[in-house]
């Protein structure tokens, strides 16, 4: 196959990417066992250019290829027929460019045309539909859930999103900024801003200091710790385990208040900027962070042990919402949810990152259920705390360096990828520039884009009253999907 091999956070010349025949490409993709990371179209004069980025996880490489499609072409043979990993990508591509994948088994709207959405329906005396949303009881984002049930048992759940029409990718082309990148998904501020900043630095050939890189990674891990602890509390809150809910809630506050001390914002807004970071971590602050994290680690360990000893908690978590490894692989689940199903992907370690390569991780024994999703969070909190401490130690060696360097103009005809492992999983940003050095396409993929379908599979044959528990375990993003 004709691919250009590149690394994460690398700029390549747009013209170096091979262009292959569309039908040949789709046939190859259908037969390929490489994991699709991104699959998107871009206007290319009279044609449409389709970019495909595949991950070769074993060899820690990214493969890029493209194809020119004439605008007169209105249909092609679907890849999803053979290879289900392309299911969402093809739906999105069809919605954005109108080229119909023939034989796609589930060709439904992604973000537009919700009025024409045809739900899967079951007929029968004892079947009933339950429609939840788009407006929910809690303060959460809009999304519609359609359950097909018999009595208390869920046969099928269909999730319809796309209520927020924000046009983030287009806004990026009009006027891109760190503020915009931070606002794409409010619970992954650091991860999104980091991906955006990295891609801008690659596209302009800016080298940032190791100090700035370290502070970014510290913030990234702090974000992971904070959200994971909050999620542990939310999972236990959903099963009415009051003590867990409260203790984790309080502990999360400690972590986000530390972020407040670092950056002036509890979610780290304004910390990262293109060219580096805006705020330093000095010795005093560093000591304080270590103290707080030790305290947090202690509380989280104690609370988790207490919760997992409670038979009522275990009875709710175990064997609830199971997604088998086969299903998870077929659906291309990524990130923390993928790991809870036994897919060992973590872009921090899979794509060589100098700061992570010496860090040790314990293997995780996935049980694929709600318990697994609880346990993986606990494991990652403990690991991230040790990572932050190690990063803080390394940071001492880089005290004298600059926080931020000035950036240059974007280099024309460039193509760059930036994959950041946010707490949810891999956040993929891809950008191209045109011949004048302006952004010509900015593509974002949130882990939720892959994982929402996993939630549908998880709740099958479970009680409908267990849905909130499964949903909390996945804790997917609406805005990361709705873009």
């Amino acid at each position, binding site marked *: 196959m004709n691919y250009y091999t590149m690394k994460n956070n690398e700029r390549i010349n747009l013209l170096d990417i091979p262009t292959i025949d569309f039908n040949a490409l789709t046939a190859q993709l259908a037969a390929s066992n490489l994991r699709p990371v991104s699959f998107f179209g871009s206007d290319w004069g009279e044609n449409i250019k389709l970019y495909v980025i595949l991950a070769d996880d074993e060899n820690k490489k990214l493969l890029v290829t493209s194809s020119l499609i004439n605008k007169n072409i209105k249909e092609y043979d679907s890849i999803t027929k053979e290879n289900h990993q392309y299911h969402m990508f093809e739906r999105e591509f069809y919605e954005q460019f109108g080229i119909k994948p023939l034989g796609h088994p589930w060709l439904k709207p992604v973000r537009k045309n919700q009025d024409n959405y045809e739900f899967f329906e079951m007929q029968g005396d004892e079947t*009933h*539909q*339950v*429609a*939840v949303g788009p407006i929910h*009881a*809690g303060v959460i984002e809009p999304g519609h859930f359609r359950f097909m049930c018999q*009595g*208390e048992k869920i046969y099928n759940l269909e999730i319809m999103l796309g209520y927020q029409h924000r046009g983030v990718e287009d806004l990026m082309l009009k006027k891109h900024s760190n503020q915009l990148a931070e606002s794409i998904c409010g619970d992954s501020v650091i991860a999104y801003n980091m991906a955006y900043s990295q891609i801008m630095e690659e596209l302009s050939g800016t080298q940032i200091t190791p100090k700035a890189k370290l502070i970014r990674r510290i913030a990234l891990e702090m974000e992971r710790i904070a959200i994971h602890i909050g999620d542990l509390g939310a999972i*236990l809150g*959903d*099963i*009415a*385990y*009051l*003590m867990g*809910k*409260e203790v984790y809630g*309080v502990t999360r506050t400690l972590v986000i208040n530390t972020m407040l001390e670092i950056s002036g914002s509890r979610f780290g807004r304004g910390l990262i900027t293109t060219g580096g970071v805006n705020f330093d971590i000095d010795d005093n602050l560093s000591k304080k962070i270590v103290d707080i994290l030790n305290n947090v680690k202690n509380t989280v360990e104690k609370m988790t042990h207490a919760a997992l000893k*409670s038979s*009522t*908690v275990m*009875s*709710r978590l175990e064997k*609830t919402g199971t997604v088998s490894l086969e299903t998870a692989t077929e659906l291309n689940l990524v990130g923390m949810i993928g790991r809870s199903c036994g897919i060992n992907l973590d872009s921090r370690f899979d794509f060589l990152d100098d700061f992570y390569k010496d860090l040790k991780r314990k293997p995780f024994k996935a049980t694929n259920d709600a318990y697994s999703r609880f346990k993986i969070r606990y494991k990652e909190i403990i690991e991230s705390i040790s990572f932050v401490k190690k990063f803080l130690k390394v940071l001492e060696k880089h005290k004298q360096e600059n926080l931020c360097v000035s950036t240059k103009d974007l280099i024309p005809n460039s193509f760059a990828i930036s994959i950041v492992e946010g707490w949810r999983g891999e956040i993929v940003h891809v950008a191209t520039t045109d011949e004048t050095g302006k952004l010509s396409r900015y593509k974002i993929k949130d882990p939720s884009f892959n994982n929402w379908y996993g939630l549908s599979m998880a709740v099958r044959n479970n*009680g*409908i*009253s*267990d*849905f*909130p528990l499964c949903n909390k375990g996945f804790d997917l993003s609406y805005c990361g999907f709705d873009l």
Partner: protein
Amino acid sequence: MNNDKFLILFNVLILLIMPFITLGVIKKTKAFWSGRKGVSILQPLYDTIKLFKKDKTISSTTSWIFNFAPAVIYTTTLFAGLFTPMIKCHSIIDVAGAFIIFSYILGLGKFFALIAAMDTGSSFEGMGASREASFTTIVEPAFFIILASLTALSGNYTFAALTDLISSNGTFGILIIIMAVVSLFIMLLVECSRVPVDDPTTHLELTMIHEVMILDNSGADLALITWANGIKMVILMALISNIIIPLNLDFNLSLILFILMFPILGIIVGTIESGIARLRMSHVFEFVFVMSSFALVVASLAAVKMYGI
């Protein structure tokens, strides 16, 4: 005569005021266990007053049943309260076989709660009604068996027998008391939608049982229903108290004990709620069946006592 008037007034006051205090105590207990200060013990009362001041919003898909039901639920519960033995087993109305009227009046209120929920046409409320009905089918017979057995022991099927279990039955009485109290306590958790059966504080419609049935109620209707549920809790707690507190105590002492039983039971409920997670919906049935088996033990013990072995 004066004493009678006092007792009637006392019973009515307990029925009307105690629900708020008991709910407040449960909330305070939960706040204590989670390290919070918590709201005032009278907060449930303030909430109810607030609800009475608010307007009602009524869904256009509902019929007269939906409007009518809150009043029926409230009246039936309060009426059942008149049969409930309070201090020294004194109830405002006590006749032989009162427990049959008592159970069926509560059943009538439940029936209206169910059809009012169905009346809204909401899929959530239908689901809630179905769950509530399933649990009721297990709880109601067990409750009936317990009350029948206990009142049968008195010989004339009145509630007055409840407190005399120890003095008239000895060791047997203690066994019956334990079994009956556990059984009624489980019923309390089921009927008043407490953890581990239901989670009264959740916002997740799909997991609710009782709360989901009143999603469409607002204003005074909602106030009446929550008040009625509080009264139902007080009724069950009063039954439990009467079984536990011996009849031959001094009047003042039993008065204090009786009043104290509500906060004590509230603290127990709140502590259970803080310490364990909610059961999976399919496991709730197993939990409720415990009540049935205990009820059968009570019936067997009563039968043995009355007819010999």
